[in-house]
Structure formats: C-alpha cells, structure tokens
C-alpha cells in the first residue's frame, strides 16, 4: 500500500511538473507572439483596409432568444460597426417574448421572399424579414429548437457573404472589432479559414447606449477571478495554441468563419454541448483529411465584451457545462488521437486537452485522496508536501501574473491603478478556495455527462445586458 501511495504521489508530482512546464512554455510563446502581433499592427492601417476595394463582405449572425430588452440596442450597434460591407442577420429563435415585434417596429421589418436554401439543418423557418430602414438587416424567424447551434445554422442558410461571424446578442463588440478580426484573413485569405477574437469581462464597466464608456474591473471577487481566468485563457492559452496552428476553440460569442467551409461540415451541431469547440474540431478534421494547407487564427485585439456569471451557482453551472462540452467533443473525436493524418492536432492539442484539461479534476481529486491516505498511513513527508504545495501555489501565481503582464505589455484595457492592483492581488487569492470549487464543478460536469444529464440550467440574469452561461463562449479552456 505504502509503495503504491509513494508511486501515486510521485506520478502526481511529475504530472503537476509537466502541466506547469506546459503553461510556462505557453506563457513564453504568448509573450513573443503578442510582441510580433503588435509590431505587425504597426504596418496595418485600418483606414486603408476600409477603403480597399476588395474587402470581402461579412455576415454577422446574431442568435436571439427572448432578448426583447436589449435586442434593438444590440442590432443598432452591430449595424454601426466599422466595416465597409456588413450584413446583419438576427435569428429569432422562437422567442416567447416580444423580441420580434419590437424589432419589427424599430427597424420597420417586412416579410420578404429572400432566398433561403437549407444547406445545413435547422428547425423550420416561420418567415424572413428585411428592414425598410436599413437593407443590411435581415431577421430570420424560426421555430424554437432549444439550441444556439440550430439558430446559427438557420442564419448560415440565409447568409450571403463568404465570411460569417457569430456574435451573441447580449455581447458588446468594439467598433473596429470586425476590421481587426479580418486582418489575418485579408492578409492570407486562401489559408486562414477562421479567426477568433478575445472575449473580455463586461461586469463592472460603464455602458452607455450599448457601448463601453469606461472599462473598469468588476466589483465582486468571483467576477475579478474570472477576469484573471479569461486573460489567462485568451492571452496565454489561445495565443500560444494559435501560434502552432493548434487552436481548438474559436469563441461562440465572437468568431469569424469561412461560410462555405462551415456549410461543408454541416454547420454547427445542434446536439453539441460546446457547439463552437465542436465546430472547430470538425473543421480541423475535415481540412486535415483533405490535406489542406490552412490556419485557424486567434487575434487578440478585436474585443467582444460579455457579462460573466456573478454568483457561484450560475458559475458552477457554466463550468460544469463547459466541462461536459469538453468531454463531448473529445470523446466524439477520440479517433483523431495519435493518428499521423491529423498532425499536431492529433498528436499534441487533443492529447493535451485530454490530459491537462479533461482529466485534470480527476487527477487533482485522486491527488487529494492519495495525500490523505499517505497521512493516514504515516507515509507522507510533511516537509516535502508543504514545499510541493508552496511551489504549486507560487507557480500558478507566476502564470496568472504573467497573463496580467501580457495584458499590461500589449492591450492595456485596465488603466486604473486600483484595478491593476486588485487584478494582481487576485492572482494570489484565486487558488483557495476558488480553484478547489472549480475542480468540483468540473467533476460535476463529468458526472452529469456520464449520467446523460444534458439539461439546460439558465443563470440568474442581471439588469444590464446579461448573458446566459450556456450561450457565451462555451469553453475557454483555461490555461491553468
């Protein structure tokens, strides 16, 4: 028994070491990539892109379900985005409130016979509406199907542009976000098939007319911890994975895709729990099987602001759902593991996600159990244990502070000294007891998936444009 415990604890130690080494590597890659990106941006003049005669049209797909409170502001802001050729398609996903009626009145919508070719499957369409005041706006009214993926698919069928960008109705896009996310696509349209922007936490910021007036850090601890998590996930995780062309997630809250390719893989999978993650995995599979030379990029400067859960219950549900989504996608793509035809995706990205993301809570809880058993059997070296905990804690803070540093060096959205001080302090405070709670939520997600519990549990909504946890960025795959 003691021999087994010793072996288990050693395994845990090396697992933890490998995981931290991976994070450190990602931090270094992300810092280098961001520096390069910023220098490249110096040679990109957005007004030149705007004036360019060959800018491809973009369709914004905005699924909306019971959004009567914010839909008009959101649509107005989207129509007002800085991009020369933009079409906005709002998909009214069987709203039971007055979402459609309010839009009809505000934008003078009229029922039209616009072309609708059901190339990807979605619930039946009730009608298509075009605005008399702005012909760039099309509203697709469809039967409810209970999934965001189904609504996006309906929008995809109506889209006429070569690129489609999925945006949540309750998120706030910065005015030049579409121009910025299109930069890698415009620079290499043959190879870049999708690009994701950064999602930032809206809580705490001042909003006026649906636009950010002043960026401030959220007030509640639980929200600030999520800010640190998002910085880590996007500025370190996605930046570095994208560098190696192994990005597995383009956020459902703000992601640009080549329309023909999304249609070619059958659109978003309605039964998927993390439909964005699922789509990117299928895109990789499809393109790798064809032997295509392609890239899926992450662009860190086009910002989409979204509200995150502000109570533990909602957050717990969100994280459990994300983990279910992770297992769902990894399981359905398990045949890609270690298969040479799937290149780095099969040999690095997917094994990493299995080992250091999906199984992380299981390994952590096993670690707790073996440590307790070692204590019970008197086999634990307390000195080593304390040193190990201290090292783990210290290393995790290095990664978190690294993500704040990355933010400071590059995009610097939090300008207030007080905000930065609070952000840094939560790099130290997030580990107890938040990290342990996070582990439990993720285990709950695994358990729910294994039991077949896919029930939808909405979060508590706030007064300002708020978010359903299941509708936002389905799975940011935190970097630590």
């Amino acid at each position, binding site marked *: 028994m003691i021999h087994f415990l010793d072996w288990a604890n*050693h395994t845990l*130690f090396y697992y933890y070491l490998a995981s931290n080494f991976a994070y450190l590597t990602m931090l270094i890659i992300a810092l280098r990539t961001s520096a390069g990106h910023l*220098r*490249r941006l*110096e*040679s990109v*003049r957005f*007004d*030149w892109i705007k004036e*360019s*005669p*060959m*800018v*491809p049209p973009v369709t914004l797909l905005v699924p909306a379900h019971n959004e009567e409170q914010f839909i008009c502001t959101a649509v107005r802001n989207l129509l007002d985005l800085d991009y020369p050729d933009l079409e906005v398609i709002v998909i009214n996903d069987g709203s039971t409130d007055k979402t459609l009626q309010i839009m009809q009145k505000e934008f003078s919508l*009229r*029922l*039209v*016979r*616009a*072309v*609708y*070719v059901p190339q990807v499957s979605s619930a*039946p*369409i*009730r*009608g*298509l509406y*075009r605005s*008399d005041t702005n*012909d760039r706006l099309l509203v697709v009214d469809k039967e409810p199907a209970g999934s965001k993926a189904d609504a996006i698919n309906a929008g995809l069928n109506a889209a006429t542009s070569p690129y489609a960008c999925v945006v949540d109705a309750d998120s706030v896009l910065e005015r030049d976000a579409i121009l910025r996310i299109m930069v890698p696509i*415009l*620079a*290499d*349209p*043959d190879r870049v098939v999708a690009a994701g922007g950064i999602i930032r936490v809206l809580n705490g910021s001042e909003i006026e007319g649906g636009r950010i007036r002043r960026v401030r850090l959220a007030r509640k601890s639980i929200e600030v911890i999520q800010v640190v998590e998002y910085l880590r996930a996007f500025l370190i995780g996605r930046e570095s994975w994208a560098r190696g062309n192994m990005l597995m997630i383009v956020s459902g809250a703000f992601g640009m895709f080549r329309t023909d390719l999304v249609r070619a893989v059958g659109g978003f999978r309605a039964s998927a729990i993390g439909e964005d993650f699922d789509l990117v995995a299928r895109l990789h599979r499809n393109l790798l099987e064809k032997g295509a030379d392609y890239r899926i990029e992450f662009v860190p400067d086009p910002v989409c602001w979204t509200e995150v859960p502000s109570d533990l219950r909602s957050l717990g549900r969100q994280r459990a759902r994300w983990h279910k989504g992770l297992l769902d996608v990894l399981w359905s793509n398990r045949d890609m593991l270690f298969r040479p035809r799937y290149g780095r995706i099969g040999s690095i990205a997917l094994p990493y996600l299995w080992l250091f993301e999906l199984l992380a809570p299981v390994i952590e809880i096993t670690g707790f159990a073996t440590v307790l058993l070692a204590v019970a059997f008197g086999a634990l*070296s307390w*000195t*080593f244990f304390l*040193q*190990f905990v*201290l*090292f783990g804690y*210290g*290393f995790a*803070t*290095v990664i978190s*502070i*690294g993500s*704040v*540093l990355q933010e*400071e*060096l590059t995009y610097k959205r939090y300008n207030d*000294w007080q905000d*930065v001080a609070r952000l*840094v302090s939560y790099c130290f405070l997030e580990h107890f007891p938040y990290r342990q709670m996070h582990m439990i939520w993720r285990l709950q997600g695994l358990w729910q998936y294994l039991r077949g519990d896919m029930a939808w549990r909405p979060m508590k909504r706030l007064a300002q444009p708020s978010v359903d946890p299941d509708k936002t960025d389905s799975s940011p795959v935190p970097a630590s």
Partner: protein
Amino acid sequence: MGSAFDTFRKLGPAAFVLRAIIFVIAADVLLLAFILLRRTYRKWYFANRDARMLAIRQQWDALISGTIPYAAWRTKTSERELIETMVLDAYEVANLEESARLLKFMRTSGLVEKRILEARHHKGWRRHKALVALARTRAPEGIRALAEGLRDRDPQTRLAALRGLGRMACPEAAKEILNWVDDAGLLVPALPLQSALIQTCAECPQVLLPHLHHANTTVREVLGRVLGEVATPSLGTELLRFADDDLPELRAAAARGLSYLKPGAAVTVLSELAKDTVWFVRLRAIVSLGELCHRTALPFLLRGLTDSNRLVRLRSAEGLVDFKNELLPIFEKVVALQDQYGLHAFLAALENAGLQASLVAEIKGTPGSSQTHETLLQVLETGRLSSEPSSPQESVLAKAAAQS
C-alpha cells in the same frame, strides 16, 4: 557531461521543489516589479509626450513654414518621430492646399528622404514602419523604395510594401507591382495584390494589358479580376479580345468590363457570354446586361432566369426589376416561362426593390382580359405557377405576399 535528467535525478524531488520555490518567488517579485516600473515609466512618458505635442502645436505654423530651423529637431529621434506622426495625421485629412504645404515640409525637412533611407536599409519591423510611413506621405519619390520592399524575404514586409504602393494610387506604382509580379510570380496572397492593383490601375487600366498577355495562368487570373474592376470605355476593343479567352477569369473580366461600353456592341458579346459553360462568367455577363439596362438585353435577362445557377437567376431578376416602366410585360413573360425557380427569383427581387404594390396596381389598372389579370395576381400573391398544394415554405411566401 550528464544529461538534464541525470541532474534532475541527483537533485531529487525535494531539492528540486525547494529550488523551484525560490525560482517562483523571484519570478513573482520580478513580474510585479516590472509591471510597477512599466506603469510608472509610461505615465511619465505620456505626460512628457503630451506636453511636447502641445508645445509643437503652438508653434505649428512656424514649424511647417520652416521658420524654426529643421536642424533644431531633426537630429533628436523622439522629437522627429513626434513631428512626423503629427504631420502625417494632419496630411491624411488635409485639403489640397494644406496637403501640398505639408508634403513640401516633409520634403524640405528631409523626413521623406529619411524614410526612404530607412525603408532601403533597415530590416524587419523597422523596415515595416518605414514603408508604412513612406506610403502615408504618398510622395512619388518613395515608390522605388516601396518597390524594393516587395523583394524583401519577410512576407509581412512584402505585404506592407504592397499596401503602401496601393496607397500611392498612380500608374507608376502599378508598373512596379506588375514588374515584380512578372519576375517573382504570386508571392503575396491574391486579395491584397488585387486591392493594390485596383487602386493603382484605376487611373490608367492600359498598364495591365501587356502583362495580361504574357503572365502565367495564376497571375492572369488575378490580373483578369483587376481588369474587370478597373475597365473603362477606353479599353473597348481589348475587352472584346478577352471575351473568347481560354481563361474563364478573363472572360468574366471582359463581361464585367463590357458594361461600360455602348449597349449596341456590348449586348451581342454579353449575350454570348451569358451562355458560357462556367457559372461565374454567366453571372458577370448577366450583371453587366442588367447594368446596361437596355431593352435589347431583356430576352437574355429572361433567359438568365431559367439558369441552373441560383446566383445567375437572382441577378437576372434584379436586372429585370430595374426596367420599372415595363414591369407588367416582363412579369407576363416571366410567368410564361413556367419556371418556378425563375419566378421565385423575380418575386424576391421585386419585393427587395419594394415594387410589388406598384405591379399589383399596374395589373389592376391595365385594360384587358380579367382572367389574365386574375391569374397574374394569383401568381403574384401565392408565388406559385400551378394549383398544387403548397408546401410550408410556400405558405410562408404566400403570407409574405399577402402582408406586403
């Protein structure tokens, strides 16, 4: 020498962890100190920059007119960069007279020369910066340096140079790009190349022609697309030559360019191109026929309504709807075609143009057989040619028609 693994084994996990703890504490302290110092420095830097900008702004006219000697600021890097940024920002929004004054200042103060030198001799992101700044000046003497940037090994630098040349928007820049493409082939993605060429060839599309004749297939496709965008009536006979080119891209370009010609000659050629085997050639031809908006194009637009390609049908319908004074006879012909897809395309275009109500009024107000009127109104209302039971999608269309 022992391997890293040997060293690690000798250290043992406990000793390693102890060292690792020291490392992470040091790393935490260093990161925090860096953030703190950087913030403090930036605060000072921006306050200082703001003060300098204000001081420059207060002496703006003296600076631009050269009353303040150039030597007073040219040798100070930060001062020069600040002035250059301010001048370029002002230059981009200036009127003609002010632009000339600012360009003269940039020339006489040596700012343009400096950027040309940097664009030629620097490497990497410094060259990027110089190329962008040079393009922002739009000074023709920068074209050579920008053209040299096209031959850089770094793809990002090539792209910056290409965009810069596009910004110049003059045939000289187009010639440099085209010569480079002739020599090197397609070393940049097609989209930015097309954009740059459209910007530079707009004034004089003739510069494209010699290259179109001898370039390889891939380049010809790109140049063909550019030609389609920039074609003017002056290219008339040349465009007719491309109408029977082997490359569909060039036939499409010819089709597009022909919309600028007089209808007489153009409709004949376009009607042939509208029967092409490649869908996008047909599409371009139909769009051009629509743009010509000439009665002789009507039969070909009607034929386009029965095309196998959805986009061709839609564009044909849009072209037909533009004949606002002849909507009723056109609609009668559309119904006579007995093509359900064509009818849908026509009705969609009619609704998008908001002309359905006027067509209804026209049908009701025209003398003639009431049965014919009834049939036309029914087709208009239901969107169906026969009396077959309607599908759910068709009932949506019928509802749309009824509401509008």
